[in-house]
């Protein structure tokens, strides 16, 4: 049962009142800070971070990733030649779109040149129109965005990875795939639809689909339905916590031995923290994972900077975003133009495939087209017994 209505309504109401109360007094606020976009040499990135709440498993590693990128950019003197530097202003959204909107408006008033977020689709979809209206680029790790020609760039590739993953699932697991799909995030049904398309090309099919809401905690009936469908593969398209819970309950009730399990690629090691041994061997194809070619140095420095925490694809998105923004800023300044959102918008797409980002970034084949819908082939990975996500060798 997922009814949080009463409390959510009250809290939302209080937040709306608070936001309304705050808005009125800021009409005469200065539109840009001295460290902001035009004319200044310090470019501010506004970071809408999901550090608490449902998406905190995405937000924490993303923050560590982009913080590391900014430290590396500074240490490398990457922007020294153009006399600029980057700074980041991080605000916690609590994983709620209403908070994210309030924070974005603050960033706009503060004159940030570009905004980033680890990104869950509901927040991305709430911020997209604001980014367009304010002409401030918004780079999100989410998988859903609004149509082309806008200021939103989403880093999760919801399609290409399944063209690659589907044949693997069919060959290693079998053709019968059952899906558990979260319904209150538009990315999850989209991922499932794209997996279905990939399976159909590979001789597989989705034989059962069960939907769950983000607040659901009991999956016993859903799992019984899946067992009835006798799947070879179970695909879980939910946030990390919930995917972990599904896997834990699959292990608790039994009956899934020999079934290959796979999760959507945006999850973190939280899946294993929740599921324990139930996550071992679960397959996914994220944009990046430790063990991917050329990643040793990044992993070592990330772990050193974060008390031994292993990076994941969200950390890689943060790191990549930092370098893409730095490169776009550099290109803007080299071109003699101001570092405004409008100036950065086309340069972000250009920067994603630049030699600089290929040299310094961590996801070499990540391409952001002008449409903002990123593509990458991904790295076939699985959860190890220690709970880390690692690229499958060989």
């Amino acid at each position: 049962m997922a009814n949080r209505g009463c409390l959510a309504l009250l809290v939302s109401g209080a937040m709306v009142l608070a936001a309304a109360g705050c808005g009125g007094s800021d009409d005469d606020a200065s539109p840009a800070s001295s460290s902001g976009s035009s004319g200044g040499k310090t470019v501010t990135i506004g970071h809408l971070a999901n550090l608490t709440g449902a998406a905190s498993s995405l937000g924490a590693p993303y923050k560590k990733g982009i913080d590391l990128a900014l430290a590396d950019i500074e240490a490398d003197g990457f922007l020294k030649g153009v006399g600029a530097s980057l700074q980041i202003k991080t605000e916690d959204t609590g994983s709620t779109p209403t908070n994210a909107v309030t924070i974005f408006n603050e960033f706009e008033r503060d004159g940030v040149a570009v905004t980033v977020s680890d990104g869950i689709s509901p927040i991305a979809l709430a911020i997209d129109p604001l980014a367009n209206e304010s002409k401030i680029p918004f780079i999100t790790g989410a998988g859903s965005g609004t149509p082309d020609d806008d200021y939103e760039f989403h880093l999760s590739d919801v399609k290409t990875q399944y063209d690659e993953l589907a044949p693997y699932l069919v060959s290693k697991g079998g053709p019968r795939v059952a899906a558990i799909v979260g319904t209150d995030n538009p990315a999850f049904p989209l991922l499932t639809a794209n997996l279905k398309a990939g399976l159909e090309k590979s001789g597989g099919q989705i034989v059962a689909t069960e939907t769950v809401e983000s607040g659901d905690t009991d999956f016993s009936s859903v799992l019984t339905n899946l067992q009835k469908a006798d799947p070879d593969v179970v695909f879980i398209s939910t946030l990390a916590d919930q995917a972990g819970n599904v896997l834990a309950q699959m292990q608790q009730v039994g009956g899934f031995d020999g079934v290959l399990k796979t999760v959507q690629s945006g999850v973190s090691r939280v899946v294993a923290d929740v599921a324990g041994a139930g996550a071992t061997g679960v397959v996914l194809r994220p944009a990046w994972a430790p063990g991917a070619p050329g990643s040793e140095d990044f992993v070592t420095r990330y772990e050193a900077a974060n008390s031994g925490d292993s990076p994941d694809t969200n950390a890689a998105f943060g790191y990549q975003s930092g370098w893409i923004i730095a490169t776009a800023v550099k290109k803007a300044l080299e071109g003699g133009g101001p570092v405004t959102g409008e100036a950065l918008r086309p340069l972000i797409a250009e920067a994603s495939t630049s030699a600089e980002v290929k040299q310094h970034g961590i996801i070499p084949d990540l391409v952001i087209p002008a449409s903002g819908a990123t593509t990458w082939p991904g790295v076939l990975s699985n959860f190890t017994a220690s709970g880390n996500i690692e690229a499958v060798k060989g």
Partner: protein
Amino acid sequence: MAFLAQQTVNGIALGSIFALYALGFSLVLANLKVFHLAHAAVFAWGAVIAWQLIAVWRWPSLLGFAVAILLAGLLNVVAYYLLIRHLQRRRNLELAAFISSLGGLIVLTELAVLALDNKTVRLPFGTVPGGNLDIGGVRIAAIQVITLITAVVIFLLLRWLMDATELGREVKAAAFDRETAEMLGVNTERISALVFFLSGCLAAVGAILVALAFNVISADLGSVYVVTAFAVLVVGGFGSIRGAYAGGLLIGIVSAYATAYISSSYREVIVFGLLLAVLVLRPTGLFTVADAAGKA
């Protein structure tokens, strides 16, 4: 047939948790005719305390559970004194107490958010024994067995307490007519405090079972189930122990069957459709309480 039996077991296990949760609401409703919404936060705190003791301070599980249950009971007594007691002589007690309790829910939930740093936490792996029973192709997980037995034992204990003890008779007397009971020598304040204590303990038992079965402890744990508790009380009958237990099982089974035979997408439509149907066809609930004396 095994599929039906399996879903029935799933539904009864889920319904047992709903029943334990609703029983706490029901006890208070029977005693004071107040819908004590802060019970939802006490529910969450029961799990949070258990987590603090067992996962953070490494207490033995059973000791941690016992202390968490007692502390949740005491927390609910504190909630009674702070939120309800001073309103008892006021007109419109039910509405005033509901609003006061709503305030208590928000404060206690926000305190739990701070205690957990707005994170979802879990009890350590292995707190509940693994494995499951296989009876004729129907798998019953160990935690489902524990949940079923706990709910039945608590239901029977409550029935015994209310029907066969002096305390139960005093609770019923206070529920029937508080002023008359006082004139007859019943310490109604003590009775109310005791009812809130029992209710808080029940909340913690339910929350610990949720934490064990569903692997989740969060500040809004109680709020997640509060609307379902409404449904259980409406279906079972307000203020009835039997009704809360039967209503919980019924809602759990309907929920499981809806997932099994229609779609998980329609589960809540069906569960709350049942609630509406009961409200229209049998507004007093399935277990009608003939008069106040029959409550509790």
